[in-house]
């Protein structure tokens, strides 16, 4: 099963290839494969980078860095450890948070991170998302919204703001154990609720 479905802009030769197959081609220095991966994942990665950085231009730079990184380090990818999609997502997140820290932005709250985002930034442009991706987005969003607010909060602070558990505890004025407990509960619930999505990625 493909990890993600093809998108409109992909070429016919790559449309039916899995992410893993594309990355193997990238490892063999095939630029077409990298372009296909970019077409498939860039919209989502760009949304993530903008969510973290709040600045569209920087987010574009981060996404480009991620794909250059994939081009140069595709050999390091271990498919037993994560899907290509998750690999790209977590690299994007890491790069974006590095930039965020470099800027020494103090206010990294949810609202602040969206301050510079254009109003239409979260509109789903036609053609950049497959049905499969849209269903995944809706499912993930629904499951995240079903989490208790306090659990979702610690998860978002860790994921989008790059805060450590100790930093979350300090900022939220909570005991560290409480933060860890909430994180564990949230992760376990998501793992259970997103079984089908995870299965598609394995």
């Amino acid at each position, binding site marked *: 099963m493909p990890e993600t479905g093809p998108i409109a802009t992909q*070429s016919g030769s790559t449309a039916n290839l899995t992410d893993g197959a594309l990355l193997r081609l990238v490892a063999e220095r095939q630029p077409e494969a990298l372009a296909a991966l970019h077409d498939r994942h860039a919209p989502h990665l760009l949304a993530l980078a903008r969510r973290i950085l709040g600045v569209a231009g920087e987010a574009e730079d981060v996404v480009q860095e991620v794909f250059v990184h994939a081009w140069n380090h595709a050999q390091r*990818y271990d498919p037993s450890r994560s899907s290509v999609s998750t690999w790209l*997502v977590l690299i994007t997140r*890491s790069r974006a948070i590095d930039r965020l820290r470099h800027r020494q932005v103090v206010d990294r709250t949810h609202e602040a991170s969206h301050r510079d985002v254009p109003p239409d930034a979260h509109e789903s442009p036609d053609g950049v998302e497959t049905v499969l991706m849209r269903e995944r987005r809706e499912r993930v969003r629904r499951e995240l919204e079903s989490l208790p607010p306090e659990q979702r909060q610690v998860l978002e602070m860790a994921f989008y703001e790059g805060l450590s558990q100790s930093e979350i505890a300090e900022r939220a004025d909570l005991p560290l154990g409480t933060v860890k407990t909430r994180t564990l509960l949230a992760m376990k619930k*998501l793992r259970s609720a997103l079984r089908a999505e995870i299965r598609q990625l394995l």
Partner: protein
Amino acid sequence: MSQESSSEDLTILAAIADLERGADPSAAGPPRGDETTETLARLYTEVLGLISFELDPVAPSAGARERLLAAIGASPVARAPEPRPAPVSAPAMPAAPTAITEALRTPPRHSSGPIPRRHSRWPLALAATLALAFAGASVWLWQLQQGQSAEIAELRQELDARRQLNARMDQEVQQTRTEIEKMRSRFALVTSPAVDVRPLRPVGDQQPNARGMLFVAPDHQHWYLSLEGLQPATGGGVYKLWWMTEQGARDGGSLVAQNGEKIQMSSDEMPAGIRDVVVTLEPDPGSAQPTGPEILRAGP
């Protein structure tokens, strides 16, 4: 918490720790544990990867793809002609690059041999941290238990001492009550208008300063004796009180004199038919009859 649950928690926390460090989630490395741990680690890594899928996708700016290809030194790859087909539609790129097709026909490089693994140290660091934390917690708990044991022992000793003190206090209170009761009884006796008062006066010259008073209740059973000026007995003798009746002398008890202090005696038993009351100095404390010299006497 079960071992499996604990292992799962540790796996999640390790994944979160990797997230904090920005570690490459798919970088090859040593196994993260047994098969279960590996599976859990993979699952939770995917959970983290899915979180951002809640966001609406954003179309890259025009030329982003070309800039990427330029950055890697490749020629721009043709994009599908506009308009874009619907999602999950047929491929848009006109021709498949031969290299890609060939690559797909041949076994991928990845499957032909292992990719060199970067040895991650976080499992060892995590294990060492956990071991240190466990050891520290054990020492702390042991010290805490020792301290609590010592504290409990001290509290027990203090509690025992308090109990003994309370017992003594209770005893003293009881004695005081008894004494008060006796004093009330004596007071009632000596102030009763019907009491029979008999003074005891010295006999001879041995104890000229000794004197006493005997109070006998109307029932002729209760009595109270008060003596003063009686010198301590010498030569092993003892002062004894005798009830002199028609049937002879009856032992009324021994008296202990200490440097002329007041001596008090009382009882609720008194033989019938008393004619005299005598205090003698008996050389033999066990004597059943008065044999020593009379010291005090109260007449009828």
